[in-house]
């Protein structure tokens, strides 16, 4: 069966992770995504060291290239050259979606802005991923997720415990990846609109807007309650419901209880943890009592959870009625039975050998996607030119002119 976006052609002129991740999602969904890279430098992501780690040689896959670029083809074009721009227009003629992370002034000077491309293809859906939005005094300023999503977007200070001297840092591409997913969703809606009503949209998503959406309860509540800093999550003593929070196991790992309607789950939890005597303890008889006596209740649960190890609890609580989770390390997700059962990790054959990538979170027709590796820099330049009707003489001429890789 065809994938949902089979037959959709996307031209991507974008760098780093945020906007390319949108292309990766579209490729997961079956679209044909053509990544346009500078013929000499390529996507700067190719040279990025992330959290002190870098792949791309010595048998170590470049995970920061694979995740946001799997399934694409790459063409090396110098858009700033006259011949290169003509070639880009030729690609755009055949495309449904144009995806870019370039700033307004750059798009204008490169002649790849909305009006430029609509002259070539009036029906193209034009998609702009930005840091700070397309309007306002900082629309010409670039963004990265660390600065724009995490710092400016409120996440860093909302998550940093008060006693730290400096704000905590984000994880790699922490805002870029949900942002890319959001762009892909916007594109899907725009494709539907064009199909149903014949109207081609301009689609805008910024890292700032994505950050605010994710943090919207804090953004709203801080204004409503006039609280510059909301209580940091995970503060056990502040929590009125001891059935929501973290508990330490015998071996120093943690479990997260998330039993919001605590009256439903208290008796079962007490039995699960081997302390049925707590069920009838008058201090803990209902939600309100447990709230009033939360310190005692938390101590009782602390003592109980300290009796077994992380692995023992995972087995012991397997049939608990309420929601709980082990606090897992990223590496443990590779063995998580739910991850495996649902096909959330996929393997691609990268240039450095097998590489496990994370699937986009949307699954269609109960089928995890079969994924292909990320392209090498400009790997498909000649193939795409031949497909567009150029011949080898043209290709050599364009190479000599510096228009292509």
């Amino acid at each position, binding site marked *: 069966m065809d994938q949902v976006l089979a037959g959709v052609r996307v031209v991507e002129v974008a760098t780093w992770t945020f906007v390319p991740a949108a292309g990766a999602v579209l490729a997961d969904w079956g679209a044909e995504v053509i990544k346009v890279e500078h013929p*000499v430098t*390529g996507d*700067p992501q190719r040279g990025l*060291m992330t959290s002190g780690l870098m792949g791309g040689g010595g048998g170590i896959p470049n995970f920061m290239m694979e995740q946001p670029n799997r399934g694409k083809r790459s063409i090396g074009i110098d858009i700033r050259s006259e011949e290169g721009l003509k070639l880009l227009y030729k690609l755009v003629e055949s495309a449904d979606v144009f995806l870019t992370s370039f700033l307004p002034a750059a798009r204008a000077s490169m002649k790849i802005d909305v009006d430029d491309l609509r002259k070539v293809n009036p029906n193209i859906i034009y998609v702009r991923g930005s840091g700070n939005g397309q309007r306002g005094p900082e629309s010409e300023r670039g963004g990265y997720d660390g600065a724009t999503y995490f710092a400016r977007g409120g996440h860093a200070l909302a998550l940093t415990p008060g006693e730290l001297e400096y704000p905590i840092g984000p994880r790699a591409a922490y805002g870029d990846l949900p942002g890319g997913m959001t762009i892909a969703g916007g594109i899907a809606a725009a494709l539907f609109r064009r199909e149903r009503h014949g109207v081609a949209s301009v689609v805008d998503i910024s890292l700032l807007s994505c950050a605010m959406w994710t943090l919207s309860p804090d953004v709203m509540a801080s204004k409503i309650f006039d609280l510059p800093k909301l209580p940091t999550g995970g503060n056990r003593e502040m929590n009125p419901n001891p059935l929501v929070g973290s508990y330490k196991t015998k071996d120093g790992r943690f479990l997260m209880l998330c039993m919001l309607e605590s009256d439903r789950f208290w008796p079962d939890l007490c039995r699960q943890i081997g302390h049925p005597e707590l069920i009838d303890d008058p201090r803990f008889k209902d939600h309100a009592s447990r709230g009033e006596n939360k310190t005692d209740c938390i101590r009782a649960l602390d003592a109980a959870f300290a009796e077994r190890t992380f692995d023992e609890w995972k087995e012991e609580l397997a049939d608990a009625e309420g929601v709980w989770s082990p606090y897992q390390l990223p590496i443990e997700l590779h063995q998580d039975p739910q991850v495996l059962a649902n096909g959330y990790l996929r393997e691609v054959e990268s*240039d450095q050998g097998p590489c496990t990538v994370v699937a986009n979170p949307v699954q269609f027709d109960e089928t995890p996607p079969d994924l292909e590796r990320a*392209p*090498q820099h400009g790997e498909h330049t000649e193939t795409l030119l031949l497909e567009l009707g150029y011949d080898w003489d043209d290709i050599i001429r364009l190479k000599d002119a510096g228009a292509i890789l």
Partner: protein
Amino acid sequence: MELKAGSRWRSAVCDTEVVVVRAPSGSPSLECGGAEMVPHDAEKPAGAQLDPAHSDGTQMGKRFADPDSGIEVLATKGGAGSLSLDGKALPLKDAKPLPSSD
């Protein structure tokens, strides 16, 4: 061997396959794993062995170019042998991004 742009070649000693994307000047010999490559549709010659001196491997999707002769090839299939031109290792042509880190 006529290394025309668009011509496809396979290694005589490993799985590597390439397409010539820019022809060289003169008529050099394109080798992989130390042995001259054969036309893509030809049989591999029997008995040819991978030369350990040319066994750094070739990775699919990578480009190799020699500025002297002007040849550029694109690996369409990876293999154990490395590419050479008249016995001289063919340099990798890779993207040159600025160094960056977060």
